[in-house]
């Protein structure tokens, strides 16, 4: 770092760069978005082809017919499927972001990282608990919608502290969540678009913008 500043243009650039770096988590990698999307697609494919028998057992009809027993075998397998997808996506986000941080010579665990995670997890954990409540109360048909809406809110909340695209990804997820609530028979389809396709699309955009 230069000791004395002589060029006002360079000064302003340095100021802007430090302001951004000190307040935002910029190590988020587009590759982690692509990876999370692929995990979601695989998870959804497992749910559709293996657990729900290629749609022979319809997502909603099935659950309507399940009725009184909340935790039958299929819900448990779907729950495990979802948890594996979630863990894989988070590990991917951690792996690709630490790689990006290393490449640009920055630390991964900074005060901006903690702030980002704090703002992400408050709505996300509330949403997770709400989804569990829905599952226990047999309102399975609303789960896809609730997951998308709460995830979208988490991203909008956290978007201020990281790359700007996250804010728009959040808004997209909220819209998809509302649509999933209206067109309730297509919940799984909207889930696939929101968690699979949109992660991949935004991941590619972020990768091309910041990492090439």
């Amino acid at each position, binding site marked *: *770092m*230069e*000791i*004395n*500043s002589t060029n*006002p*243009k360079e*000064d*302003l650039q*340095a*100021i*802007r760069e*430090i*302001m951004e*770096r*000190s*307040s935002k988590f910029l190590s988020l990698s587009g590759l982690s978005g692509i990876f999370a999307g692929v995990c979601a697609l695989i998870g959804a494919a497992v749910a559709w082809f293996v657990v729900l028998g290629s749609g022979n057992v319809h997502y909603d009809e099935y659950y309507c017919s399940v009725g009184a027993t909340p935790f039958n075998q299929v819900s448990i397998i779907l729950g495990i499927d979802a948890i594996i997808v979630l863990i894989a996506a988070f590990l991917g986000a951690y792996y690709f972001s630490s790689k990006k941080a290393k490449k640009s010579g920055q*630390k991964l665990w*900074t*005060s901006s990282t903690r702030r980002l995670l704090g703002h992400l997890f408050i709505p996300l954990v509330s949403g997770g608990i709400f989804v569990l409540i829905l599952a226990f109360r047999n309102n399975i048909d609303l789960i896809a919608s609730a997951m998308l809406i709460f995830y979208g809110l988490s991203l909008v909340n956290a978007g201020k502290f990281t790359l700007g695209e996250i804010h728009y990804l959040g808004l997209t997820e909220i819209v998809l969540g509302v649509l999933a609530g209206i067109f309730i028979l297509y919940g799984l389809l909207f889930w696939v678009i929101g968690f699979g396709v949109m992660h991949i699309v935004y991941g590619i955009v972020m990768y091309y913008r910041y990492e090439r």
Partner: protein
Amino acid sequence: MKNPISNLQKVFESRIRLGIMSALMVNDTLDFNALKDLLELTDGNLASHLKALEQQEIIVVSKQFIGRKPCTTYRATNLGKDLFRQHLAALEELIGNQ
């Protein structure tokens, strides 16, 4: 026309002080280590610039203990923020005049 250079603050002439202030404009408080990592400075170098800013009442220092570890945090004062804004405006005006 008023000369914009008169609004440039002497205290921000050093790039390091400019950096410290930039970080404290967008963060309510930052601790010593966060500033150190951000600006990639040695302890002594950062400490001497922080001291200078503190003496001019541009930043305030507060010391607490987290468990047994001392933790020193820094915050920009209102005076410091005003001076920094003036300095920014002067820099922008200089670029506009070039």
